[in-house]
């Protein structure tokens, strides 16, 4: 086909901006073997949480003494994780990462602070609600992904079933049974009883929330932070509740 012909045809690509909050794995030790073991144990608790999740490796305090990054990448991928970028890396480690196909993010100690304080602002859920969502931070990456529509489920989600709304919100208009799992990259709304597991922000979006009209969950998680049913959330059992992430903590708040 000639160049002029292809000009008239559909362009071969479209560039779209999309902000996405990413999960950061901050390294506190360069003992990769131990790190892998601990991560594995963490994943075993809630295997669906981080599977395939895009991950930024923050070299943090071990930047100076880490041997390189190739071995670490292999270990993370072995666990089913998808590292896509490094930040705060030593120059030679950054070079190695580039060669291995990773993006290198700008140093962003400042924006990290900003984001931490932004999370604090969510503390008062009511307040956060009246605000527009936080401005994207410097460290965010724009991904050319199509915008997805929310997914709506009208039939009960049964034990052994798993529903995943990739890239968007999930609305369930029926019961989520014990032993069932509902997952969304965005919010999860459940208008029946939630007796199973609900996971919001599965791709790492800490602004995602879980809303349910009858809370009786086995496990809830947002952006990789999870909580099984225990005494601390017992007071919300059988009530309407929303769950949001405040820093590292899942916070519960009565709905209505």
């Amino acid at each position: 086909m000639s160049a002029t012909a292809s000009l008239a045809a559909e362009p071969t690509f479209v560039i779209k901006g999309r902000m996405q909050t990413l999960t950061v794995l901050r390294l506190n030790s360069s003992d990769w073997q131990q790190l892998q073991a601990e991560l594995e144990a963490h994943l075993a608790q809630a295997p669906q949480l981080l599977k395939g999740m895009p991950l930024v490796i923050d070299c943090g305090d071990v930047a100076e003494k880490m041997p390189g990054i190739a071995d670490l990448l292999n270990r993370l991928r072995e666990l089913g994780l998808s590292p896509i970028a490094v930040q705060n890396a030593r120059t030679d480690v950054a070079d190695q990462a580039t060669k291995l196909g990773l993006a290198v993010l700008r140093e962003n100690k400042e924006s990290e602070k900003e984001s931490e304080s932004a999370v604090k602002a969510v503390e008062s859920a009511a307040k956060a609600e009246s605000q527009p969502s936080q401005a994207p931070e410097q460290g965010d990456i724009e991904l050319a992904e199509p915008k997805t529509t929310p997914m709506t489920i009208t039939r009960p989600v049964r034990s052994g079933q798993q529903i995943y709304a990739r890239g968007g919100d999930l609305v369930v208009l029926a019961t989520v049974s014990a032993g069932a799992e509902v997952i969304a990259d965005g919010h999860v709304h459940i208008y029946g009883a939630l007796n199973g597991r609900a996971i919001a922000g599965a791709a790492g979006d800490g602004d995602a929330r879980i809303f349910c009209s009858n809370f009786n969950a086995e496990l809830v998680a947002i952006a990789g932070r999870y909580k099984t049913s225990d005494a601390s959330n017992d007071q919300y059992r059988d009530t309407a509740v929303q769950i949001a992430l405040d820093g590292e903590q899942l916070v519960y708040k009565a709905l209505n």
Partner: protein
Amino acid sequence: MAKIIVITSGKGGVGKTTTSAAFGTGLALKGHKTVLIDFDVGLRNLDLIMGCERRVVYDFINVIQGEATVQQALIKDKRVENLFILAASQTRDKDALNQEGVGRVLEQLAKDFEYIICDSPAGIEKGAHLAMYYADEAMVVTNPEVSSVRDSDRVLGILASKTKRAEENKEPIKERLILSRYSPDRVARGEMLSVEDVQEILSIDLLGVIPESQAVLNASNSGEPVILHEDSEAGQAYRDLVDRYLGVDVPHRFVDPKKPGFFSRLFGGN
């Protein structure tokens, strides 16, 4: 059009075969031409409960393997008009069943029968899956205990996702709940889940509650479906269930604890 109905549960020993025999017999008693198929290859229970175990010449597997025709394998019930049984093989293993073969046999039966009742084996493995694969409707038999309810929930998920209707995006299988081996007294003592508890967890239509009853064992020992024992509570509960299935509005009986009768109150009986 024939209706294919699977009697399923996940858990074993909850009353699937008892229900298949009673329900199928009940439909035939109402004049509907009905065939019962035993999918529990290797165990062969249905023919015992129907009392035709000595009349099995060819079975379901023989038909699937082309060793006999459907007509040769169908056993006609001696008591009830319009009722036929297709027995399972006791000697073959489960792998003799295959999806394509089951489909072929069901298609053939659909030409002759109004109702095809598939008695599923326990579990969620191949046999159970094949029994439900072609179903139009499902009766999920559940006992009022947590593990049974959980298994039924799982089976409902499979019915909604791994069956022909689901795969072809047709109207979903119609699901109904049969709560079996129900003991109102034990429910009242908090030893078992109540009808309401189970319904709340499973959220499907309740077709019938069958009480725990010695009559079931007596009937199966004598090779008779319990629905023919009209004086028994279980038999009556199955009759109600069939009426309800056919669209008659019948209230649920046998769900409340028995009130002590006048005499037992008077003499402090029990």
